[in-house]
Each structure stands twice: as C-alpha cells, then as structure tokens.
C-alpha cells in the first residue's frame, strides 16, 4: 500500500475503499478482506469520536493520547484540548516521522 504512505507523508489521510463492495479497509490493504476485490484510496471525513484517552509520561513521548473511532476506522492518536470520552474530535494533522513512525493528531471537532 505504497500510495497510502505517499499521501500520509504529504499530510493527507486517505483510506483504501473496495471498488466493488465499498468496504473501508483499515489497516490499509490493496484488497478487500470481504470480497478480495481491489481497493482505491479515497478521502474520508476525518472527524470521529474519542473512545478513551490518557497521558503518557515516557521520556520523549510525554503527551495526551487516546483511541479515536472515525466510523469504524480506529487509531491511536495524540490529542489536545480539554477531553472527555464520547466527544467529537477532528484530525488536524498526520504524517510520517523521520524514524518511519506514522502519527495522527486530533483536536476538538
């Protein structure tokens, strides 16, 4: 799924969608796990619901983070603002760090 990485490296979050049944594949895949048809990357609405959050105190990784559910696309992201589980949040940035690690950041919707 090199295209997924190409987009996210430019700060664009796109998700593979099955060309036949329209299932969204997450984590990204070049084929659908239901009908095994090819997928193509599409823009999606990057707002979601904050499921749970907490604070990391690990050196170099000291921040608020949590699980966000974007209508079935769940990921762990860094967060900002005053947080409550169940609140609506919006992806404000995403990308790839120098070490190859992907990142996602959400704030209030």
């Amino acid at each position, binding site marked *: 799924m090199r295209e997924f990485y190409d987009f996210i490296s430019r700060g664009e979050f796109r998700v593979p969608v099955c060309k036949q049944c329209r299932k969204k594949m*997450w*984590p*990204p895949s070049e084929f659908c796990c239901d009908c095994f048809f090819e997928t193509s990357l599409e823009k999606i609405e990057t707002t979601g619901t904050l*499921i*749970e959050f907490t604070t990391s105190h690990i050196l170099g990784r000291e921040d608020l983070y949590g699980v966000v*559910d974007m209508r079935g*696309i769940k*990921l*762990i*992201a860094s967060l900002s603002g005053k947080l409550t589980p169940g609140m609506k949040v919006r992806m404000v940035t995403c990308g790839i760090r120098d070490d190859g690690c992907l990142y996602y950041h959400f704030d209030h919707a």
Partner: protein
Amino acid sequence: MPAREVAIAAYATTKFRRSSEKSLFESACEPCRNILAQDEIIRNEIDAVLFSTCAVEQYSSSIISEMLGLTPKISHRIDNLCNSGTNAIVCGFSYISSGLCDSVLVVGAEKINTTGGKLTWDITRGEYRFPVHWAALFANAHMRKYGTTQEQMAMVSVKNHSNAAKNPAALFGEAITYDQVLNSRRIVSPIKLLDCSSLCTGSSAILLVSDEKARRMSEKPIWVRGIGQQTTCASFSQAAEDLTSIRATKEAAAAAYSMAAIDPLSIDVVELHDAFTILEILAYEDLHFAKKGEGGKFVNQEELAVNPRGGLLGCGHPIGATGVAQAAEIAMQLDGRAGLRQVKGCKTGLVHNLAAAGTSATVLILGVD
C-alpha cells in the same frame, strides 16, 4: 476429546535474569538438558522439537536439536509474540493427538533485547508503539466504567511479587509493598513502573507425550484436558471494540472449558498473563472467575491460587519462554513439586496467555486423575 490423549511428562525452567552471557541457543538448551537427562530412553524417542521465540535467528529449532544430539522428524520454530510458548504447546499437542508424533519437546527462550518488545508493524497505533500504551487505555476504561482503582491494581503486583519471592527461577526475588507500587514512577497513567512486567532473558521447556508413553513414564500423568485458542485480529484498531475486556481470552476460555468439560469453579490453580496489573483484573473476568466489572475486588480473594510462580510481574517476561514457563508451573503444581509455593491439593489448573493487545489468546486446562 482428542483422538489421543496428551500429557506433560517433564518440565524445567531456568533462572530468569536481566541478561546472560549465554547465546539464545545455549539458553534454550539449558532446560532441555535437564529434561533429557531424566530419562535416557526419551532422548531417542523425541519426534519433534518446537522452539518458541521472537528472536530473529534463522533455523533455530534445528540448531537446538543438533546441539542436543536429537534427530527429530519435525523441527521448527513458533513466533506469535507473547503468546508464542502457549501456541507451541498447542502445536505439539496437535502433532501427538493426530498420531504424527509420540513425544514433542517444546522449548521457549528469549534474550532481553528481543525484537518482540516493540510493535512497529501496527500503524493503527501511530506513535504509541509500546505495549504499556494500549494497556493504559484498557486500565483507564475499566476504571471509568467499573470503578476499578489504582490500589486494586497495586495489590496484583504486591501479590505476584510476594509469590515470586518463593520461586528461585523468578527475576525478582523480593516481595514489594503496596506503597512501593503506588509511589513508583508513572509510565503511562494510570500505570506505574511496578504495574509493569519486565522483559528479561530466560528459557523453559516441557515434554509432551502420548498417553501410552505418559503411563509408562509416570504414575500420575499431567493431562492436557482442554485447549482454546483464538486470534481475533492483529492490529489494535480491531481490538478496540471494547476496552474493558479481551474477546480472544473469552473465546479461548469458552473453548477450553468446553473441551475439558468443566466450569471455572473446577479450577484450583491458574497462571494467567499479567504483563500489566490491569491484565490480571481483566483475565479474572474474561476467564469467568469474577463477574464482569468485579475483577478489581477479586484481587483479595483467597479461594483460587492465581500466579503462584509470580506471574510475569514477579518472574519477568522472556517473551518466547513465558507461555512454556506458565505451563511448566501448572504441571509442577499438579505434580505436587512446587516447594514453598505449592498449592495444596490442586488437581486442575489453567494456563492463560495472550499477545499484542489481546488480539490472540490461548487457554490450556491441565489436570491429574
């Protein structure tokens, strides 16, 4: 019931350490030497050698076989992160149950610097790649929904370190206090340093045999009576349906109880996966020892012996060796040879292990007649 019954005929676990000058292979051979030295006949009858590890070394199981002077029909490694050891036992069970083998040596070994400690392949975790990051989310969710407390989690660590103090193979040889846990360094809220197990170097082995061999070798065979294993997914995104329980554990437990034709009340002794204190609390509920939401209160019960060897918290966590060491402990308990930590009168024991945010889990039920 399986086509052929399968028993644990021998077991051995080495002292778990921060590090060792021994190579991975030398470490793996250590418990095997103890087992093979017990019975000269067995050495010539090993049909399979299964090596559980997350290490990257190639052709490892065959190398270990050669070092031990064994020429098994089947020799391969099993890698499934923290669940590798229990997966290897399930594989060995299947080889014997199917009639393909009569004796299978299952060995697990890991070095502290294993690649299994950090999950770089799961992009749904973003920058939060350490296991403590997902465990903390589960802990927060359980606290929020059911009122589980940091004090209850601390009691898990106190109990398991206290048990480990009676286990010469454990990494940690001393009991710790409740205040030490609560005042230990914050890692990821609400998890503190002493809520976490430590990766370490260690090895463990068990010998699985067919029923005919088991009856020849022992007056009291330790039977593998139930197995449940479930893989629900690999990525955290798929595991995050409910952050207060682990579905793979629940499904594996249901299968294992069904195969053994027993219920949770029949279990006398348990080794369960406690890489973080919250995971022991979740396992109480998912294995049906406690009602949903009451795992925190279950910590102080004294009816069921949980993690008598010290669990992962007290023993350390040499990833590929852990599942094998858990089974070796339950076998030792049922054999009545657990010394200072012996659980009196135990006849049925349970092993629970899991991997990668609970995306796969295994439950084994062992018993003696």
